[in-house]
């Protein structure tokens, strides 16, 4: 046995090939749809096909704040759009001349406040989502403005948002 030839150092064909992180990152970015493994069922087994893209995507999602708000995604997309609009107004919003500049100044104060509020909304929603909606005191203390914002824009209550987030996370 001691005189036996050691095996060839060449990896077996099924050893995973090293994959560039940049390629995986690009694949995840360009991907449409969910990053769930591809499911298949037999009579007694649930089978899932997992590719490196799934594994990288799962790790990537764990690194980033949770931004999947389920049925509230449309609302938060709207919030993000308004935040972008506020940034545009802060930059002057294309106003011309002195009057325009003044309007830009006026808009700037409101826009900055708007933007700060939007950022807080997103941050709070992220926290709620991440902690399964069990609002710890700091979050609970910051969330009333969500209700104000929600009522003023959509005619509904933010309490629904908080419950919805909690339900969705459990």
């Amino acid at each position, binding site marked *: 046995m001691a005189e036996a030839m050691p095996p060839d150092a060449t990896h077996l064909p099924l050893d995973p090939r090293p994959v560039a992180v940049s390629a995986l990152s690009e*694949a995840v970015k360009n991907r449409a749809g969910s990053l769930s493994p591809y499911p298949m069922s037999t009579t007694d087994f649930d089978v899932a*096909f997992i590719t490196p893209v*799934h594994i990288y995507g799962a790790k990537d999602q764990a690194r980033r704040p949770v931004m999947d708000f389920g049925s509230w995604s449309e609302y938060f997309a709207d919030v993000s759009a308004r935040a972008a609009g506020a940034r545009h107004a802060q930059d002057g919003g294309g106003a011309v001349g002195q009057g325009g500049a003044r309007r830009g100044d006026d808009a700037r104060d409101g826009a900055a406040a708007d933007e700060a509020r939007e950022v807080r909304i997103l941050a709070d929603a992220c926290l709620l989502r991440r902690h399964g909606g069990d609002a710890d005191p700091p979050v609970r203390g910051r969330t009333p403005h969500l209700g104000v914002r929600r009522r003023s824009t959509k005619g509904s209550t933010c309490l629904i948002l908080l419950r919805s987030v909690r339900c969705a996370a459990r």
Partner: protein
Amino acid sequence: MFDPAALGPLCGAVKLTVYSENEPDKGDARVVDQKVLQQITRDFAPL
């Protein structure tokens, strides 16, 4: 672990047979959906 090349859409029909420890002689065979094969190929294309 499978080599992705073993599951390419060029293979035509890919059949997966799963055996359980309780009934090792009884295989549970299913043809893998072409959509799944295409998705797997798409995942590996840039890698």
